[in-house]
């Protein structure tokens, strides 16, 4: 079958070089992966094309690239799956990471993020019998995050990293969760406190689910970040806008059955936070003039006691 590839080429080492697209049209085996096709281009058409790969079986995590705007392991993606009728496939290097050449990105960003979360076990004692014994359940729980092959796909498509390179990022935060949940680690609270307080920590995730969608190993980094938010709150971290934001939503739905938008804005800022209130005021005023100000008393669900009953029932189970 025909594979039509449009590949982003860029060699920052060449003086005056600018990124450009180059098109290749080749005949590939119907079972070809996009990686097979790219290797075929390099071997048969254009030896100057740079790409990184190793195992070709979605184990090593070397061949993360953007295909049609979305990060994927190209060894795990068949040409036929995305372009059954010879549609053009746009192949670019991963995002949010520095391009070394063509489709190869530097691993520095990724591993600098990993280093920030102290990526090793910190037990507080020596094991009694040569090794630490952990229960099966506790290890099964860790399997999601331990499946990470460090391919960088989640980092590539993270919408926060696009605007804030200081964000610790989905892969490193999922790795952090792997240690906060490990019964052999003694620094759970210290880790959670740091991730709660640090700029670029757990509260900066937007919950956009890009990392969940693009992860080839179902690590679901965002879910892990949400669990750490909950755990950080349980560990006593209640002085963040993020905490107040969640609480406000929780209380508003409990009380009215609906979201109270005005209250959500004020609660999140903190009622005594004068600068933030002054910041909110002009936008509130503008909305008021246009008839867009949320009602002071929010719309309420009919028969809202039923909603409160569900709260009590589910919360009761948790205790």
């Amino acid at each position: 079958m025909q594979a039509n590839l449009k590949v982003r080429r860029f060699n920052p080492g060449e003086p005056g070089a600018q990124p450009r697209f180059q098109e290749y049209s080749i005949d590939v085996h119907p079972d070809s992966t996009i990686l097979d096709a790219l290797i075929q281009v390099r071997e048969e058409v254009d030896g100057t094309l740079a790409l990184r790969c190793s195992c070709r079986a979605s184990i090593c995590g070397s061949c993360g690239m953007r295909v049609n705007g979305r990060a994927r392991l190209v060894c795990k993606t068949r040409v036929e799956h995305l372009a059954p009728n010879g549609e053009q496939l746009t192949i670019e290097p991963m995002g949010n990471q520095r391009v070394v050449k063509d489709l190869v990105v530097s691993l520095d960003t990724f591993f600098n993020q990993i280093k920030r979360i102290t990526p090793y076990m910190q037990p507080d004692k020596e094991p009694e019998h040569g090794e630490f014994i952990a229960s099966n359940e506790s290890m099964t729980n860790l399997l999601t995050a331990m499946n990470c092959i460090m391919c960088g796909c989640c980092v590539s498509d993270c919408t926060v990293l696009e605007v804030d390179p200081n964000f610790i990022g989905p892969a490193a935060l999922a790795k952090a969760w792997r240690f906060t949940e490990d019964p052999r680690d003694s620094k759970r609270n210290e880790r959670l406190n740091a991730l709660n307080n640090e700029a670029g920590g757990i509260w900066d995730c937007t919950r956009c689910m890009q990392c969940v969608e693009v992860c080839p190993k179902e690590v679901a980094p965002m879910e892990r970040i949400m669990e750490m938010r909950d755990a950080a709150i349980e560990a006593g971290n209640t002085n963040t806008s993020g905490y107040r934001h969640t609480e406000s939503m929780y209380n508003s739905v409990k009380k009215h059955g609906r979201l109270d938008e005005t209250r959500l804005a004020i609660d999140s800022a903190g009622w005594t936070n004068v600068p933030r209130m002054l910041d909110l005021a002009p936008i509130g005023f503008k909305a008021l003039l246009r008839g867009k100000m949320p009602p002071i008393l929010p719309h309420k669900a009919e028969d809202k006691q039923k909603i409160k009953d569900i709260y009590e029932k589910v919360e009761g189970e948790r205790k």
Partner: protein
Amino acid sequence: MKYAFYPGCVARGGAPELYDSAVAVMKRLGIEWEELTKAACTGAGLLQEKNRKLGDALNIRTLAMAEQKGLDVLVICSTCQGVMSQANHAVQRDPEYLAEINKVLADEGLEYKGTTQVKHLLWVAIEDIGVEKLKGTFTKQLDGVKLAPFYGCYMVRPSAALGFAANPDRDTSLEIAIEAVGGEVFDFPGKTACCGFPILFINQRNSLRMVSNHTGAASDGGADAMVTPCPLCHLNLDGYQPKARKQNRGDKADMPIIHLPQLLGLAMGMSEKELGLQRHIVSTKEIVRKVDLITAR
């Protein structure tokens, strides 16, 4: 064609023009509905952060109320769509979890069997009504109007919960709608990114950078307006655009953020007032003027 209508909190709060325009458009489309006035807020993913099961129970309660009426749920908000679809997906693939949730709902005499579908007006328009019939309700062809799609995260991810495999058109639903009204699509990578709303009150700097990047890209690309099926995206991209653009690009907010029903309404020949276009923070005058100049068929 009848649905259980779930307008969501923002259409009844900070974006009342969405509710009004959606209702006006639904009437023209021949859609009948019963509004789910007893339903709770979906929790917008935020409530789920604190207690997943509580959020799921509230959403399955809504789906069970619709199921009792024998109706699918119609929403007009990407976030409502996504959060309800996620809850639905969770119970549909795990009968034990469904039984647990049903236990919580039993006091109210509700039992969910798992048959309700949740559908955004956008999907209803192109899947249930169909593009050809939809086009038949338009009186204007928006020739020469360039529109940037902006989906809202929950309308596109996670794709497994949103039924993308069975309904491949959902991947480009907004572009299909823009083309149906005769507009030109301004395609840009930000269309499926985050608008920044979920962190607006947590990290405003990052949130406003997102607003500035997306609306700025649309302005640079010559779009007349951005169209979104999500009122939360609208609140951020419209309400905070002046501050975001000034802070990050040093320019003026010039990108109107149109709700999907407002776009359909414009093609149906509805007035600015009917669609609440005068209520936006970023002026919609230019696009309204441009559409006014197009003669009706």
